[in-house]
């Protein structure tokens, strides 16, 4: 817990520096988070151009409005949340899609799978089982095990209370293991 709060503090400090016009803090924040935001965003809208545009938009506007920025304490979830709502907006514009339908499975990333032939067999099962989860369950698995965000941040991003985030994660891993067991039997 202590280690995480150090990281949170670092982000909050960078935020304050950005508000004062420090371009180096801005660059640090971008390089620290951009790739993570890309990865997260790509699962919401599987379109490289749209996601890169959205992330860059977010950061460009951050710098342009730096003087009017509010004091954000939890910078990381704030940025995840921003990119999430931006991409959901573009989704709604394009497909009039339901928010819960928005978190993509892994099955569609054939090219990525081909590059990692050695894991092919196991991944195929895991892939199938991941795709059987609900979009929200997939999303929390991504945020938890790939992005390594803590429950507090996830709850913040997904607009839920802490315990609901833990419960969602529990349901996701339970569903995943049940599915995997069926495959091995």
């Amino acid at each position, binding site marked *: 817990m202590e280690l995480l709060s150090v990281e949170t503090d670092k982000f909050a400090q960078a935020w304050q520096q950005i508000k004062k016009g420090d371009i180096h803090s801005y660059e640090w924040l971008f390089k620290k988070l951009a790739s993570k935001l890309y990865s997260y965003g790509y699962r919401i809208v599987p379109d490289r151009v749209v996601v890169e545009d959205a992330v860059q938009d977010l950061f460009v506007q951050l710098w342009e409005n730096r003087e009017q920025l509010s004091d954000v304490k939890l910078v990381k979830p704030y940025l995840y949340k921003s990119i999430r709502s931006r991409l959901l907006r573009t989704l709604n514009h394009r497909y009039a899609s339901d928010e819960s339908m928005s978190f993509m499975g892994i099955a569609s990333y054939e090219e990525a799978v081909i590059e990692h032939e050695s894991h092919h067999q196991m991944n195929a099962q895991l892939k199938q089982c991941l795709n059987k989860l609900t979009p929200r369950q997939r999303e929390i698995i991504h945020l938890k095990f790939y992005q390594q965000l803590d429950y507090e941040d996830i709850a913040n991003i997904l607009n839920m209370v802490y315990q609901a985030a833990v419960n969602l994660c*529990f349901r996701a*891993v339970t569903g995943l*293991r049940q599915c995997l067991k069926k495959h091995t039997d």
Partner: protein
Amino acid sequence: MEKYRYSVEDLLVDASFQRYACGILGEEDVDISEIRQFWEDWCAQHPENQAAAQEAIELIKQLRQAESYAAVVPDIDKSWQQVLKRLQTTRQPQKPLVTIGWRTYLRYAAVVFILLSAIAASSYLYFLVPIEVYTQIGENRTVTLPDHSTVVLSGNSSLQYARYWGSNRPREVWLKGKAYFDVRHAISPDNRFVVHAGKARIEVLGTSFDVTNRNEATKVLLKTGKVKMEVEQMQPSSQATVSTVLMPGEEAELSEKSGIITKKVTDLEHSMNWVQQKFVFDNTPFEEVAKTIEENCGVKVTIRKQDLRTRRITAHLDAKNLDVFLTGVARLFDAKVKRKGDSVVFY
């Protein structure tokens, strides 16, 4: 210590265990030595949970791999250069483009519509509502009518007429009080000039005359031309109209009570002097002087000194200032005057 078998799921959702697993998978960039120590001790103390721990770590490993395949990691340096480029092109703070939605558009349209209707309604009213001219006590005002006829409106009087007069319709004015008319010739037979004063209807056949409509009587004094005076009929069907035609120098008086018109010849020059705001009294009894003052100045005159009533006076008085005028009259009669608002007392 009580033994409790942890499930793989229990461990998977534990935040500390998650960090431990990620740490030993070599992908955590923060120092986790403390957490690692804790979980290794825990595994040593609870061998019954070791299998579950192994399974949980393996699943996390595979999940992370699967997620990594799906992850798109662009060239961050290139991306950063793109952000910098965009910041340079938009260095000047951009004003958000104002996009007008149809709702906003409707709102503006509604405002414009209301404004236009207001303008239409007010101009309609402007053409319809008659002009009314009032004069203060002791004030004469010259009014030019739409046909360029002139009216000298005496003090404490009012005149009403339409803003626009058609050339084929009667020119009508409504008078309360006293006025001198100098009327232009009619353009067409229907274009006659009519003065409504009390119950009297004065139809102008010629040019200049004087109308007084006070104390329940209407007087017309003709200077030049020809004027017809008749009693205004409430019902058009009733009786033959009472009417008289005046010649220059003649004065007709209609009593509102009796509805009878009486005619006499008067001294034109004296009677017309008020047009220049002068009062001319020629051997006039004081009672009549008082009446003239009441009529022209809108005050109530009371005579306390009894012998004043019958005394006569000959004088020319300027009526521009009522107080000066009153003291002047009082001095002539060797009396005193007191004025309090609308009430004047001679004593």
